[in-house]
């Protein structure tokens, strides 16, 4: 191990701005990569320390999943029970339906959160009038900034079949709206659609940014070749933002078991538990509401493992199919 890379106290006295000059006048430059890399290590220290403490420090708590946890002097006071908590968990009658709900909701969201923003970005990109473009953006970005606390309140009111604005607008047309938040069939769909509603506008930002970085000369030469708008989109625009789409999809894969806690916790009710209960709400109810800490941690750990498998798989997939590496 290269020792000089590690102890931070050695590095603190070095004037970082002068470092380049020192390096420039030094013959060490080519020989010793370590010195050149040293400032990079230093830059990483704050993040490593904080992440080390708060993320890795608390990961020791995963051990609770393998215990008959008695909340007492820290982690090692409790009896170890191996996989018993997982066994209990997997045989719970509600567990697998919850996994099914979670995957359905999360997968639908994952797909739509890529497809809808990309389409929207492409359509918006066609607009030449900057003022119009910006006005549209102002409106569609707005929901993203609002919390599910606020939005849940609004949707509960808006979607009520008896007094909500949607029902009031539809009733003159003779349409009776379904009970979006109180119906087993509609609840998960409503969760997916409202989540997409909230996020697609802002989700398109990243694609719009990618679109602006496509070299305009490519379009010019395509036009000279007589390629139409549609062909340009297919052969220049989409490949131009391909790397962004892949990045977003790959990062999205880790969400395979993320149904959206904030949203569902603030909108669900017992009647839709069959189809609307997701792993996160289950973990929460088990751990915080029922004080079943070990079972709850086991369920959370299960989620982490599955997510890890998915992210590894998608990472390789992106690398193999698109030659793309996240890091």
């Amino acid at each position: 191990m290269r020792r000089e890379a590690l102890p931070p106290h050695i590095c603190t006295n070095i004037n970082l701005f002068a470092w380049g000059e020192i390096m420039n006048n030094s013959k060490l430059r080519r020989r010793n990569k370590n010195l050149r890399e040293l400032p990079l290590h230093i830059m990483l220290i704050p993040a490593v320390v904080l992440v080390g403490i708060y993320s890795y420090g608390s990961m020791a708590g995963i051990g609770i999943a393998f215990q008959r946890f008695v909340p007492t002097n820290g982690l090692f006071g409790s009896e170890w029970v191996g996989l018993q908590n997982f066994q209990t968990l997997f045989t719970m009658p509600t567990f697998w339906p919850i996994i099914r709900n979670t995957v359905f909701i999360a997968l639908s969201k994952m797909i739509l959160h890529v497809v809808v923003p990309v389409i929207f970005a492409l359509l918006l990109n066609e607009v030449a009038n900057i003022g119009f473009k910006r006005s549209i953006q102002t409106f569609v970005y707005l929901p993203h900034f609002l919390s599910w606390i606020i939005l849940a309140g609004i949707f509960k009111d808006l979607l009520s079949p008896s007094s909500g604005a949607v029902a009031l607008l539809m009733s003159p047309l003779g349409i009776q709206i379904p009970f979006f938040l109180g119906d087993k069939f509609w609840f998960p769909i409503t969760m997916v659609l409202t989540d997409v509603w909230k996020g697609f506008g802002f989700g398109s930002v990243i694609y719009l940014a990618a679109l602006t970085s496509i070299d305009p000369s490519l379009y010019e030469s395509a036009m000279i070749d007589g390629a139409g708008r549609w062909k340009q989109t297919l052969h220049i625009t989409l490949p131009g933002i391909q790397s962004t789409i892949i990045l977003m999809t790959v990062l999205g894969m880790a969400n395979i078991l993320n149904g959206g806690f904030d949203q569902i916790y603030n909108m669900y009710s017992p009647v839709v538990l069959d189809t609307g209960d997701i792993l996160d709400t289950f973990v929460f109810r088990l751990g915080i509401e029922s004080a079943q800490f070990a079972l709850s941690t086991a369920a959370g750990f299960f989620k982490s493992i599955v997510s890890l498998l998915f992210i590894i798989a998608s990472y390789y997939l992106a690398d193999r199919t698109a030659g793309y590496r996240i890091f």
Partner: protein
Amino acid sequence: MNMQTSVSRKIFMAFNCILLVGTALICILPFINQLAVSFSHKNAVAANQVIFWPIGFNLSAYDFILKGDAFMRALWVSIQRVAIGVPVNLLLIILTAYPLSKSKENFRFRSIYSWFFVVTILFSAGLIPTYMIVRFTGLIDSIWALVLPGALPVFSMLVVMNYMRSLPPELEEAAYVDGASHVRTLVYIILPVSTPTLATVTLFSFVAHWNSWFDGQIYMNRIQNYPLQSYLQTMVINVEAFFRNSTNVSADIARYIELVSARTSAAAQMFLAMIPILIIYPFLQKYFATGLVLGSVKG
């Protein structure tokens, strides 16, 4: 592009505009509806008369919410949180993304560090162990409890890192040949051209801080220290209970009883919670749009 505007192109553009306007309306109408409800007389709301225009216009619901200082206190906590949390996020993102954007040849430990951070997206230990650490580090009931545990938003960091990696390598090579240090390269060369992506992640972390509610409820010992969203989540608006608890019945109370219901006050409260965003948002968007222009220059 402007030379040949065919008929089909015109039809497409018209259709496109209608579609975009429709989309924008879908995004904004729910808020118009709530705004109308908040300004309406409670009887008009109860009779299902209010859709997009207030009926029996009055401001009593707002008056009612603002008279209780709990709302303003929570708002202040939220503002503090954003003011501290966002700069901390941004600093750590930059300090982390820059080294990790280096190629493997220039920074051999890149992969290890990357994994070190990415793993934390996947494995969150859950609430209880995190609470123990937060308490162990002495942050309970302090605004830092809402800032430090999530000081490095890994997703945002990846976005910035990805952007920095996509910059032309010649930029840095030139700097390297000139003998510029890493810090100098970062500050004078990389950061100026990274404005769009930094604007994006600033928004990410602004939104994340503004919207989180659960950590506030758990790490803050007193309801007075709850940030706005935590406060809103626990606050079941019970107008009747409020009236009942008002120990001296004033003219105000009589007016509230006449005009305000749970629905109108809920709508008013949501709107008040949105106001800071509505103030900051156009400013951010303007900045953001500039960032996009800057981003396109580099190509």
